[in-house]
Every structure is written in structure tokens, then in C-alpha cells.
């Protein structure tokens, strides 16, 4: 197929626009880092409180050399992955149960709403007492935050099933299991996939919150530890790590989502 001149111009314009946006973003980041470094070195801002890019890099290097950096990152990533997959699978299973038993759904609905609107961090101290001051408590914390959201999203996706399609399958003699397998779950695929993104954001919040409350390892621990010893270089390093990590993880989930949606 030949592309007309105007079409080519249009594509060129699109490409140009993308480049402009990208370079502006890069310039903003570099400019910000430069300004930060400059202000800190000229003592315009107090480097003890605000740290600086060079100090952060130095801190990260030290942490890397003594081997604790990778441990912290690995700990946080594994907690995120465990909480994420547990949240998604439990959310999915519970959504199926609620869909299959409407009476049960009616019974638990107000409780779910209550739990959903409760600031979960309030439960932190209890979780530590019940689950112990360990990784389990962090996972439970993250699950509290991501599970209800995924459950409600997926459940509502199931409820949106087209009644005409349900009737069609029933006219073929479909039972509940067949309805779920052929219609209810496949038609909610888009909802389920988009709940992944929601879930990962919630998981990040939950894991870091959990690490704040109870941990000996992890990026959240790094931040809290830095605050306690009033070493803002460590705190800032932790935040920078977290920004990069969440950006990467979110990017991965977005990529997976796109691929899944592409295959219809």
C-alpha cells in the first residue's frame, strides 16, 4: 500500500511531537538534578536535610559494596510479587464464589464496603501482633489493601455479563460451570486485566507500608532506618530506589496488559 504525501507528513509530525515530549522530559529531569546538586553544594539548601544527587549516588554505592543494597531490593520485590499474585488469585477465586452465591454476596457486601473504606494502616499494629513481626505481616498488610479492590473489580466485571448471552447459553442447556467457563470469565477478561494495574499500585502501597511498620530488610526499611538515624542520604536513596522500582514494575504490568489485550 502506498502512503500519500499528507499521510507521511502526518506521521512525521507525530514522530516530531513524540521526540519533543521525550526530550523535554529528559531536560526536566537533568535540570532538576543539576539544580538540586547546585543548590546543595552552594549551601542554598541544607544538604544535611535535603541530601543531593551526588550524596545519593555515593550512599547507593556504599550500600551496594557492602552487599545490603541488593538484599533490600530483592526483599521488597519478592514481597511485592507474592502479595500481587496472592491478591489477584484470591480476588479472582472469591469473586467467582460471590458470583455463584448471590445470597452470600448480599450478606458480605456491607462488610466489604466497610473494610474497603477503612484506612488499612490502622490495622497495622494488630497485624504485627497476630502475624508476628516478620515478612508474613507485610504480606498480610499488602493483601488487606490489594485484595478487596481486586475482588470488587473482578466481581463487578462478572456482574456485567450480558443477560442475552446468558440466555443464549441456557437455551443450549448450559449449567453454571459451563456459563462461567464459556461466558462469565472470558467476558470479564478486560476487567480482570485492568485490575492487574490497580492491584500492583495497591500492592506497592501495602508492601512499603508493611515495611515501615515491621521489617529488617527492604526499601521501606531503608527509608525508616535512615529517618531514625537521621541520615537523609539513606532516606533519599530509598525513595529514589522506590521510584525506579515502581516505575519498572508498573511498566512491566502495563506491558503485560497490552500484550494480553492484543491477543483479543
Amino acid at each position, binding site marked *: 500500500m502506498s502512503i500519500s504525501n499528507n499521510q507521511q507528513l502526518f506521521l512525521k509530525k507525530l514522530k516530531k511531537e513524540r521526540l519533543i515530549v521525550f526530550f523535554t522530559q529528559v531536560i526536566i529531569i537533568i535540570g532538576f538534578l543539576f539544580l538540586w546538586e547546585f543548590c546543595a553544594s552552594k549551601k542554598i539548601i541544607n544538604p544535611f536535610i535535603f541530601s543531593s544527587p551526588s550524596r545519593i549516588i555515593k550512599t547507593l554505592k556504599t550500600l551496594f559494596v557492602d552487599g545490603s543494597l541488593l538484599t533490600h531490593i530483592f526483599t521488597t520485590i519478592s514481597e511485592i510479587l507474592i502479595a500481587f499474585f496472592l491478591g489477584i488469585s484470591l480476588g479472582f477465586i472469591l469473586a467467582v464464589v460471590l458470583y455463584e452465591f448471590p445470597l452470600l454476596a448480599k450478606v458480605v457486601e456491607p462488610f466489604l464496603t466497610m473494610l474497603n473504606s477503612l484506612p488499612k494502616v490502622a490495622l497495622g499494629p494488630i497485624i504485627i501482633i497476630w502475624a508476628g513481626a516478620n515478612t508474613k505481616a507485610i504480606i498480610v498488610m499488602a493483601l488487606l489493601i490489594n485484595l478487596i479492590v481486586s475482588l470488587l473489580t473482578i466481581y463487578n466485571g462478572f456482574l456485567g455479563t*450480558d443477560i442475552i448471552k446468558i*440466555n443464549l*447459553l441456557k*437455551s443450549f*442447556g*448450559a449449567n453454571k460451570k459451563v456459563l462461567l467457563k464459556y461466558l462469565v470469565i472470558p*467476558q470479564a477478561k478486560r476487567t480482570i486485566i485492568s485490575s492487574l494495574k490497580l492491584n500492583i499500585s495497591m500492592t506497592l502501597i501495602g508492601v512499603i507500608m508493611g515495611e515501615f511498620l515491621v521489617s529488617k530488610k527492604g526499601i521501606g526499611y531503608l527509608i525508616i532506618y535512615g529517618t531514625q538515624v537521621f541520615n537523609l542520604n539513606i532516606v533519599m536513596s530509598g525513595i529514589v530506589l522506590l521510584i525506579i522500582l515502581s516505575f519498572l514494575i508498573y511498566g512491566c504490568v502495563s506491558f503485560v496488559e497490552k500484550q494480553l489485550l492484543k491477543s483479543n
Partner: protein
Amino acid sequence: MNKKLSIKNLGKSYYTKQGEIKAIDDLTLDIYEGEIISIVGTSGCGKSSLLGILANIEEKTKGSIEFQEKESTIGYMLQNDALFPWLTIYENAILGLKIKKKLTKENCNYVKELLKTYHLEEFANKYPNELSGGMKQRVALIRTLAIKPDLLLLDEPFSALDYQSRLAVSDDVFKIIKKSKITTIMVTHDIGEAVSLSNRVVVLSKRPCKIKNIYEISLSDDPIANRQTQEFNNYYNMIWRDLDVNIE
């Protein structure tokens, strides 16, 4: 003509907080082998409930439905094509067979044959969103025919289509029904459709619906040509008057 099924004193009520809604009250009707019978009535008069009950989707409140044969395969076509967007045209077409666990090689070939007949062969591996409304409706028809029904229930099956495709698709459906002599019950609010396609037209009163009139239609086997005739207009006017009285 042989009886295909008898509907006796059928009643259907829906229960809501506000009270009982009687959709159908004491409906008695015989359906004959091979006929095309249309049921017309104002909207919400319980016509669709009747098909729902016949298709085993809804429970009846009272009365009985007796089929002459013990084993009867019912094909049900609904208001819209209800194709599954995540399945290909072919997968959609064999959906009924799959659920009924009748996915034999012979039946698959039959579906392929049907797709060929309706010029949908080259679309077999495409998805519904790539097809026009009329084509999708034909796929829905193939999905219904694939299970080889001996009773066809059509619930305003062309109402989602534009006028042109509507005439074309209903012409297709009519030809198939005529050729295979499948007993057909069609529910519609389109009097023209009912008169041009059917052997009999049953006019229902408004809720709770009762039979108001039954018209024997004697027109040709060409639904589009039927619409041009004087008799068509006569039937049309009579039925329209029947329905009009009920609107008030």
C-alpha cells in the same frame, strides 16, 4: 397437519416488591408441524416470556406445554446476534454444539457447509467486530441451525438491524426455514415482518396477555414480494387495528 406442541392454560407471573405482574394469563395455543407462526403484541405484553418458557430459560407459573416428541431440540435466536467478541466466527458458530457436547466431525462439516452457503467461509477465522450487522446475524443463525433444531424460536431476531439488512436477513431465514421445514415461533412487534413471513399470526392483547385474534395468512413464499400485495395491506391493517385498540 400434525401437532408439534400444545400450550395449555399457560400463565406466567413476575413477582416484585411492588406486587405481582401477570405477564401471561391463561394462554392456550396449538403449534403445528412445519408452520411458521408469528406472535405480535404491544411491547412488554409478555411475548418474550412465552419464548423464554418454551426455551427452558424461564419457569412457567401455571399450565402445561406438551411436545409431541419426547426429544426436541430447540433453537433460540435472540434480540441481538449475541456473538462472543473473543471467539472467531467459526468458534461462535460451533458454540451450541460445543456446549451440547455434540462436536462431531460430521456436525463441524455441517457448520462449515453453512458458512459456505452464506458466503462467510472467508471470515471463519475473523472476529465478529470485523463483520457487518447483517453478516453477524447470519452467523447467529448458523449457530442456531448447527444444533439441528426441530423447533425454532425467534425473539425479534432482526430488531437490531437496519431496514436493508433486516429484509435481506429475514429473507435468508425464511428460505432456510421453508427448505428445512423447521417449525418456527417468531415473536415480533413488526406487523409487516409477521405478515410477510408467517402462515399464522397470533395477536396478543396487552398485559396480562391473552390471544386476541389468530389470522391465517395465505401469501406466497417470497416475503419481499409479499409486501407489495393488496392482501398484505389488508392483513396489516386488520392486525394494526387489533393492536391499536389495546393501546387506548
